[in-house]
């Protein structure tokens, strides 16, 4: 949400057009629905409950995979599944889906940074040179 002003922005500003308080409240409105429309069908739960269902299902799948014999495919699958879980929580529960893209940047930049850093650390050989 951009900042709030009673005045129209001057001509030379390049900021987003500020919203008003009224709009801010309206923006929260989508949360108030107790039904979720998914692929054309209407479910009688809030979207949060639907997401919870998916999360629970994925977790069960994960546990099952981990009990199967170890393998690269399994591991990749686990990583992908947990990424999906993380993204679901962040997008729906933390409302990143509907917030300003700036917040997404605030989250993605450090994640990229630490992934690179960790990959680098793993590439430092323990052996002699």
């Amino acid at each position, binding site marked *: 949400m951009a900042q709030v002003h009673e005045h129209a922005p001057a001509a030379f500003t390049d900021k987003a057009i500020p919203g008003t308080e009224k709009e801010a409240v309206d923006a929260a409105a989508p949360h108030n629905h107790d039904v979720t429309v998914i692929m054309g069908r209407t479910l009688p739960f809030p979207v949060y409950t639907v997401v919870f269902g998916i999360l629970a299902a994925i977790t069960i799948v994960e546990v099952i995979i981990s009990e199967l014999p170890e393998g690269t495919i399994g591991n990749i699958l686990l990583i992908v599944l947990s990424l999906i879980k993380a993204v679901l929580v962040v997008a729906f529960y933390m409302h990143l889906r509907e917030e300003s893209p700036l917040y997404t940047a605030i989250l993605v930049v450090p994640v990229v940074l630490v992934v690179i850093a960790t990959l680098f650390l793993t590439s430092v050989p*323990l052996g*002699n*040179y």
Partner: protein
Amino acid sequence: MTVKPSLNSGTPAGGQSLSIIWIVAAALGIIFGGLLIGTLSPSLFPEQASLEAEQVDGLFQFMLVIGGAIFLLVIGVLVFSMVRFRARINDRSDGIPLHGNSTLELIWTLVPAVIVLVVTIYSYQVWISIRTVQPINHDVQAIGARYAWTFNYDITPETLPAGITIDQITEEPIRVALNSESGLDFNSGQLHTWAGEQVEMSMRPEDVNHAFWIPAMRIKQDLLVGRTTSITFTPTDPGTYRIVCAELCGSGHGNMAGTIGYDGELQGAWLVVHPDEETYLREFYEPQVMSVLFPPPDPALRGRATLASAKYPCATCHILDDLGWAGAIGPNLNNVGNNAARRASGTPAEVYLETSIRHPGDYLVPGYGNLMPQFNDETSEPNYMPEEDLTNIIAYLLTQKQ
């Protein structure tokens, strides 16, 4: 400094006098002078005594010229602006309302980019060249311990001095060791090699990280706990060159380098480059090998040889004239033969010395802290000192009386 008081320099919005310009210009002049002297001074670097040194120096010189030019440019524009665009007294007008110039900005983005590209490529070439390891080289091991360097040379049946055969070795254990896989070796506090041959040295630290540096060779590599690292260089000129520890390793970090004694003899870690392999063998390698193969019968002499070989880092901290030690951290050992008997009443000198080496904290000479490392008789522990060495060293130390 001449600031004319009449100008009322306290005036916030007032203009400025010429005199301040002169002050600043003079300051800059001095700085220029300093820079010029620095740049022109022939001894920017220590002597150039390895193949690596020639290349690194060339690269540095190249960067110095470029860097110097950039510096002169910046300073030139700066000084010119200061003189040309200074505000005159009582001039309250502003400069021209100029906000930028895309062409100029593009130029001063691209030109530095090209410069750093060139510098990077040149650096990369030098890097590749100094990293090349020759198939044949002189192979040594180095150990860095707080606060001394030890260099370890292998003795194999093939490298015995001319005229010596294995059968001539009288002592059974030495003969067996020489033929075994682990082989025989000896230590020296100095690194010996000869000109024109590449040295490849693997290094490991005893306790904390150190860094092996020979300024005259322009090479440096850290010793990392838990790893063995290696370094290569090719000395070109015979001579002696200081070895320096370049990674903070504790209180004696500064002492972990080659020093010169009062009468000019070399102490601590030095690189000795002999003119050729023959001289190296004759003057350094073979005498050492002989004293290992045919150790003196007297334990005191053996002890002296052990200590002189810098197998243990005692020289850094102790003074002992007989061996030319000049360390200032631990107690003076010149009269240790007498002192050891007196220090702890009821304790025989041998026991006192043994305790002082195995458990240095048990007896402390008044005025000295508990700084000495503990030398253990377990190979698994740091600072391993075999029982045999200990006995010999004690025998030797007991002869040191004044």
